[in-house]
């Protein structure tokens, strides 16, 4: 009998494959085995020989222990994607796996830490989400603001607000232009919001975060099948959009500080509200500051003027703090070494660093990339090889901790 890998979990191989957007054939090619063999591994009908197992770990950059860790069955999922219809299956697959890993990290930490309690407004929701009116959504957004103590003022840090009120926020690359964020809240579990870091636009990402908050508050009773129905999905998305706009730009204070709905006025307002100019144009239309014709014209002008991006987009993304703080507490309190954390989580250091919001190099002690800077020789003008570069001294920079 040929030696195999005892305790190999086929679903872990599926996860690892999906996390990098490969199909069975692609993975087979990478490992030099047949697609049928991959299928057998994934269905737990066969387990890899030691040399194949080594190859799997090497090619997928995961430890052997990862493939031996059982998977938690979460039952029916209720992930709410933005732009679901436009996201490819590979992108959704990748996002789901990364989200699953993030949850495993959080569950690991939850054994050691008590997280802030979930604090969402208790709103009596009509049984049919299709009957939600704009007024109802505006009120829901305001009640959340009041519960969180924001009144009608601009919110400096949306991610901090979410985390302070018991929502776990994960930020990571989703690797898809069309996938911005998603959220999930299963009974007896944490509420999660996963924010894509791909676009890197702070105002946009704040809107995404609150859009997901809207789903968590307004659509907690909506069934999975409704999210799959395209026409219902459109309604759900537009309701979450309305919630986000109302939450970030409360009608009373937004109007109070806006003299006229012009692009220049919105540009100034962006500094205060940290909402995109485009988002403010839409909000101005919702609040009837613009009629349909003015709205259309403004969108055309917007496209002309900000073709290369809006001013103020260079602001840094808001970063989650809760999960990285747990890691810092474990390490600085000498409760776990970094090596222990890696072993117990069985994920690659890069994946943990990204999903847990840790700085790059947290586990590896990475010192930063070393770049050889060319410098000109002295008296270059007098020499025949003027302008030729020689390597400079190499200075190592420590990554931010």
């Amino acid at each position, binding site marked *: 009998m040929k030696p195999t890998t005892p305790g190999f979990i086929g679903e872990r191989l599926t996860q690892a494959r999906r996390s990098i957007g490969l199909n069975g054939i692609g993975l087979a090619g990478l490992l030099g085995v047949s697609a049928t063999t991959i299928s057998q591994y994934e269905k737990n009908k066969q387990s890899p020989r030691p040399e194949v197992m080594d190859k799997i770990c090497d090619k997928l950059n995961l430890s052997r222990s990862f493939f031996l860790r059982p998977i938690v069955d979460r039952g029916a999922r209720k992930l709410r994607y933005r732009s679901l219809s436009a996201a490819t299956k590979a992108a959704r697959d990748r996002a789901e796996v990364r989200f699953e890993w993030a949850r495993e990290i959080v569950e690991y930490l939850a054994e050691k*830490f008590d997280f802030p309690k979930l604090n969402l407004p208790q709103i009596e929701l009509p049984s049919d989400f299709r009957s939600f009116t704009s007024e109802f959504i505006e009120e829901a957004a305001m009640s959340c603001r009041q519960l969180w103590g924001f009144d009608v003022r601009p919110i400096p840090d949306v991610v901090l607000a979410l985390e*302070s009120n018991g929502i776990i926020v994960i930020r990571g690359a989703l690797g898809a232009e069309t996938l911005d964020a998603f959220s999930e809240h299963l009974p007896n579990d944490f509420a999660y919001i996963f924010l894509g870091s791909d676009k890197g636009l702070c105002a946009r990402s704040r809107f995404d975060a609150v859009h997901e908050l809207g789903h968590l508050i307004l659509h907690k009773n909506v069934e999975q099948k409704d999210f799959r129905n395209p026409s219902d999905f459109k309604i759900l998305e537009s309701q979450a959009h309305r919630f986000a706009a109302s939450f970030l730009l409360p009608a009373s204070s937004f109007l109070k500080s806006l003299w006229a709905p012009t692009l220049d006025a919105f540009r100034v307002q962006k500094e205060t509200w940290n909402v995109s100019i485009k988002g403010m144009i839409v909000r101005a239309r919702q609040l009837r500051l613009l009629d349909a014709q003015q709205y259309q014209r403004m969108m055309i002008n917007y496209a002309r003027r900000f073709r290369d991006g809006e001013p103020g987009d260079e602001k840094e993304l808001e970063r989650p703090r809760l999960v990285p703080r747990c890691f810092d507490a474990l390490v600085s309190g000498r409760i776990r070494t970094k090596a222990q954390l890696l072993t117990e989580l069985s994920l690659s250091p890069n994946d943990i660093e990204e999903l847990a919001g840790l700085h790059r190099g947290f586990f590896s002690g990475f010192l930063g990339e070393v770049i050889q800077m060319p410098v000109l020789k002295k008296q270059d003008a007098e020499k025949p090889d003027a302008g030729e570069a020689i390597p400079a001294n190499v200075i190592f920079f420590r990554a931010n901790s």
Partner: protein
Amino acid sequence: MRENPELLAALVKALPYPFLDGLKETIPRLYMEAEQAMSADPLLGPDGVEYAVPHYRRAIIEKAVRDLTKNTQIKAVVLPTTKSTAKYTMLQSGNFRLTVSYLNSPSGQIRGAEFRNTYSQLNKLLSQRSFDDFATDEPIAEIDSPIYCILIHGADPFDKRTPGFMKWAFPHPNGSGWIAEFDFSTVLQAASNLKPATQADGAHATLKKQKDEGTGDE
């Protein structure tokens, strides 16, 4: 042009929020009003409307500005121009002297007028404040020295019936543009006292008590 928070604060102090809020509500309405009133006059014809709208708009805006100063600390007077060929509205609030002018575009130059040139001389010391990084023996203006400021407004290029921009601008004494300028929204927002909410950092988890504590490397 550099940021000038001190000047902005002084301007906000001189212009109470109800006055600014009134301008915000009134000026867009008066743009529309001027267009409609002149277009409705059968004696004017299209060319006449084009000629009359700016004059009519100026008159009703200046009247509205004066009306809005009632019950505020701002004093409003109507004064004749130097050659007494026309009249203009002059506002005074604290050390600020303010007038209102129309411009075709936000980057355009204001039309020359003797009274504006005269008031612009008030900003002589203010202009030196903006170069305060350079050593100078010249006296530097205190923020409570007299300052001249103009409320500049102009139509939306795509729709002349609505204002496209409004700003508070401080003309240079030598007529070469502005020493400083603030978008109307910036001033309105500062006056509305709409500061960001104070935010508590509650993103902390508490460590549970566990048997298995420690890395074993102590």
